[in-house]
């Protein structure tokens, strides 16, 4: 009883303390809003952070047992690399005030002037592009950081089972420092694309396509895994070693997306976050069904790998338009995304672009599709109430937005293709990007790390 009283008193003190801070700022209501918004933004960011586990398990499940340690290592280290890269310079380039191309102020270590959580005209600082959200600077930073980490980790899947560990680590650093933040500045940091009216609510282009283009260049420069194509040039199946782990990852990513999309409001706005949760979930559900149906009809059996990829495809596709479209539209977007992802997997296989986990089909193809969906399905009333912008898509009377979305897709493609090509090329010349054939055959776990994922088990693999 006494203990309860003590706790009660402590709680009361905290509440009064919070109110006291509010009184300094002017009104108590503002302070409560800042507190709630901050909690929402941080919880959402933590969900997005959790997606690292999703990527780790999806990718390692879809790969072979002999490369499992390597894939898990890549996924673990990539978030550490992005955290530091984004802190050193990435954040400043993305959100610092500057030109239409890149940020110039407050570049290093978040050292620019800032008086968050002040917003609008009250904001006095150098990160004005993100001053619309009333949360402390470090909450903004953490939320944006986990997005940067997601873009970097997308590359990991497409280059899996053959990339050199050290080259991948350095490429991830490049992603966090100058590939992701520049496109991010254009779209979200007050750059030229945002001035043009380009809309990408939670990052179909900024996060997923950017990661996808970088992954495409990596996969093409590495070439296919040994044994992926027969002497006749036909693709061969290289089955993943643990679909239980891949399924776990699929669910973790799905959960993480409830932070990714609704969290991008960066405010606990009840109408907006509820709307976005439902558009996000509806698109995922529709895409799961359409991807499963497509694989069933096209390939003869309902392929679990395609079902999981379908879910992710729907989530990526709804990422840009989640705050601008109706729930009915999100259903249509999801249905199309699920079909697209299966066709894209078959397409890349035939083009001899070896992508062991389907990262290109999920993040690149559906990232582009989702971005264009803003220009097709956006409805003015929803965009205004949920997304805070006045736009309408082609199907709802606005042709201009579609053109703007196309420009955004093309510009980000060009920038990422060029910069990631140069980065991969320099790495190739300096360190090499692919492990030796002998190492690839025995597995990167032993070659790169000198250890196995399933010590004590006999793994029967002949490819």
């Amino acid at each position: 009883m006494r203990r309860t009283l003590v706790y009660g008193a402590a709680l009361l003190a905290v509440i009064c303390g919070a109110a006291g801070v509010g009184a300094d700022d002017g009104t108590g209501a503002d302070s409560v809003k800042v507190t709630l918004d901050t909690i929402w933004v941080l919880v959402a960011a933590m969900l997005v952070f959790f997606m690292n586990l999703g990527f780790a398990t999806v990718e390692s499940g879809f790969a072979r047992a002999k490369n499992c340690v390597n894939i898990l290592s890549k996924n673990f280290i990539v978030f550490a690399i992005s955290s530091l890269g984004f802190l050193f310079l990435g954040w400043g380039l993305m959100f610092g005030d500057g030109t239409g191309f890149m940020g110039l102020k407050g570049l290093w270590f978040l050292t620019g002037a800032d008086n968050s959580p002040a917003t609008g005209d009250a904001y006095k600082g150098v990160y004005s592009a993100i001053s619309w959200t009333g949360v402390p600077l470090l909450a903004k930073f953490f939320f944006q950081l986990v997005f940067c980490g997601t873009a970097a980790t997308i590359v990991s899947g497409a280059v899996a089972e053959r990339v050199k560990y050290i080259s991948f680590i350095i490429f991830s650093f490049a992603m966090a420092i100058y590939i992701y933040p520049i496109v991010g500045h254009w779209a979200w940091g007050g750059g030229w694309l945002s001035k043009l009216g380009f809309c990408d609510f939670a990052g179909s282009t900024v996060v997923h396509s950017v990661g996808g283009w970088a992954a495409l260049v990596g996969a093409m420069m590495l070439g296919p895994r040994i044994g992926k194509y027969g002497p006749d040039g036909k693709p061969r199946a290289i089955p993943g070693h643990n679909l239980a782990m891949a399924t776990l990852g699929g669910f973790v990513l799905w959960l993480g997306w409830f932070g990714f999309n609704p969290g991008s409001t960066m405010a606990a706005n009840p109408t907006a976050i509820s709307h976005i949760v439902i558009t996000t979930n509806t698109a995922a559900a529709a895409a799961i069904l359409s991807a499963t149906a497509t694989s069933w009809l096209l390939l003869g059996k309902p392929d679990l790998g395609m079902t999981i990829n379908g879910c992710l495809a729907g989530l990526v596709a709804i990422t840009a338009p989640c705050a601008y479209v109706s729930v009915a539209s999100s259903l249509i977007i999801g249905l199309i995304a699920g079909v697209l992802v299966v066709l894209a997997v078959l397409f890349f296989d035939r083009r001899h672009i070896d992508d062991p986990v389907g990262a290109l089909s999920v993040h690149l193809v559906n990232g582009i599709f989702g971005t264009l969906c803003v220009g097709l399905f956006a409805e003015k009333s929803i965009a205004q109430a949920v997304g805070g912008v006045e736009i309408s898509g082609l199907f709802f009377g606005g042709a201009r937005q579609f053109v703007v979305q196309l420009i955004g897709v093309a510009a980000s493609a060009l920038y990422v293709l060029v910069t990631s090509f140069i980065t991969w090329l320099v790495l190739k010349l300096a360190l090499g990007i692919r492990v030796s054939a002998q190492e690839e055959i025995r597995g990167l776990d032993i070659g790169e790390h000198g250890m196995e994922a399933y010590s004590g088990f006999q793994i029967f693999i002949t490819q």
Partner: protein
Amino acid sequence: MKLIIAYIQPEKLNDVKQSLYRREVYKMSVTNALGCGQQRGYHEMYRGVDIEVNLLKKVRLEIAVNEDFVEPTIQAIIEGARTGNIGDGKIFVVDLLECIRIRTGERGKVAIG
């Protein structure tokens, strides 16, 4: 009747199967094996501590054949499994005393073929 036992590199199994098929040898048993020969395994580390001799992953093939098929089978395995590097594997040929097909009770050459 002979029993041909071969230890090969796992990634060569597909090539060996194909060269066996070309010589009309369709029946085989394949199991997972661990072992080492001249290479003496490989080196591994676990959390900073050495693990010295590790057995390498191999595949063991067992094929029972009649006399006419002994040479073609050996040639097929060599053709499919040879890279010229240490670790390509070995083939053992042993006499087979009897062979019985469980379903019919047939014995000897008919049971193998």
